[in-house]
């Protein structure tokens, strides 16, 4: 079975810089700004509070958005989320 070649994933439509901010601030910013990206688009949250590593995926699960990936940054992490509704 041949699969069509997947195009390279597009970059996030919006990047929220929450570096230096403690939870729940990164989650509040994500919740407020996810509606600013089109349906199905990606939004990235940059954060360096270790609590975000648990809270971003957990929030996505609660709110039925898709948690796509966590990427390590020189300082903190980038959390990529897909707006699902």
């Amino acid at each position, binding site marked *: 079975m041949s699969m069509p070649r997947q195009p390279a994933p597009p970059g996030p439509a919006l990047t929220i810089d929450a570096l230096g*901010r*403690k*939870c*729940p*601030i990164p*989650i*509040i*910013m994500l*919740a*407020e700004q996810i509606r600013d990206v089109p349906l199905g688009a990606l939004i990235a949250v940059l954060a360096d*509070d*270790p*609590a975000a590593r*648990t*809270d971003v*995926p*957990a*929030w996505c*699960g*609660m709110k039925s958005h898709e948690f796509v990936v966590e990427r390590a940054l020189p300082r903190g992490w980038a959390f990529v989320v897909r707006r699902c509704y």
Partner: protein
Amino acid sequence: MAYLDAASSEPLHPAARAALLTALDDGWADPARLHGDGRRARLLLDQARQRVAAVLRCRADELSFTGSGTQAVHLAVLGTVAARRRPPTAGPAVVASAVEHSSVLHAIEQCERDGAQATIVGVDRQGRVDPAEFAAALPRAAAAARAPERRGAVLACLQSANPEVGTIQPAAEVAGACRYASVPLLVDAAASAGRLPIPGGWSLLTASAHKWGGPAGIGVLAVRKGTRWRSPLPADDREGRRVPGYPNVPGALAAAAGLEALDSERLTRETALRALTDRIRDRIPHVVPDTVVYGDPVRRLPHIVTFSCLYVNGEALVTELDRAGFCVSSGSACTADTLRPSHVLEAMGVVTHGNVRVSLPRATTADTIERFLAALPGIVAKLRGSADPAVSA
């Protein structure tokens, strides 16, 4: 002030207080001495040991009093690993759940620094280990230790119930798997002793008196007959050679009185407190939007309920509740001495911010809970209003 933090420390039970005051006068002498005052202290200490052993369903000679629950756990973990060490090739293997008390995890970290291999078993979203997954980790741990002569790990650790979210662990099933694999099981019963029957099948059992309404400064360590255990500390004849240092006889008696009292009231209190925590579980999602209640709704400790309010700072929430007259604790970061959130909430994969643990002491009334439920929505709304990130954008 409504004290709703019994899982941190249950207020001293009146029976424990009375026993403590009497024992301060009667049990001060050295119980190791042969004179009259010493013999009287020995008698009181033995009596305390028998009474605690009866409630915990073990033999009196299996039970030692320690200086704290944490010390009991440290001795249990380090002493079991010390007794089974096979230098130099085979590092002993230890299996534990990810949601054990920090004393268990820290003791295991020390074993790892000394060459042990640790396997940490994850939990589901309610904070419970899967007994099959835990059982499967036992032979894996043996392989990690490269000890083919052993059929399993040298130690497995599982709490009876989780003190942060209240979920009861499948300790009896895990004990069966450990027995099959010939692995001694440490059951940390600090959260449940006196509140639920002690699960069977353990090789080592630990608990802490101040969690059951006894005094601070008393823990218990029980080592089942036939369990290989060697003190990791310098030799001392006290407490069956398990716990060094002069025993706290008045504390032991007060601990015994508190445990007996809590145990004797168990069914009535459990019913009453469960009704109150059920009420909180039911109402919270209705009165406070964007709130999640954690832990198993049924198979849980009767006195604990934990929830997170989205978009609220946990530290601020605890402070505001305190100002409103409610003492609660939180698993959110910055609420204890740590900058990290609770390892239990992390392991469950649930939201860690805005977290509140309400744990009811024995005399909690329905009126207190209604007042709490009435106060919480306004406090959360106020904090949500003040946490607007737009001002900082």
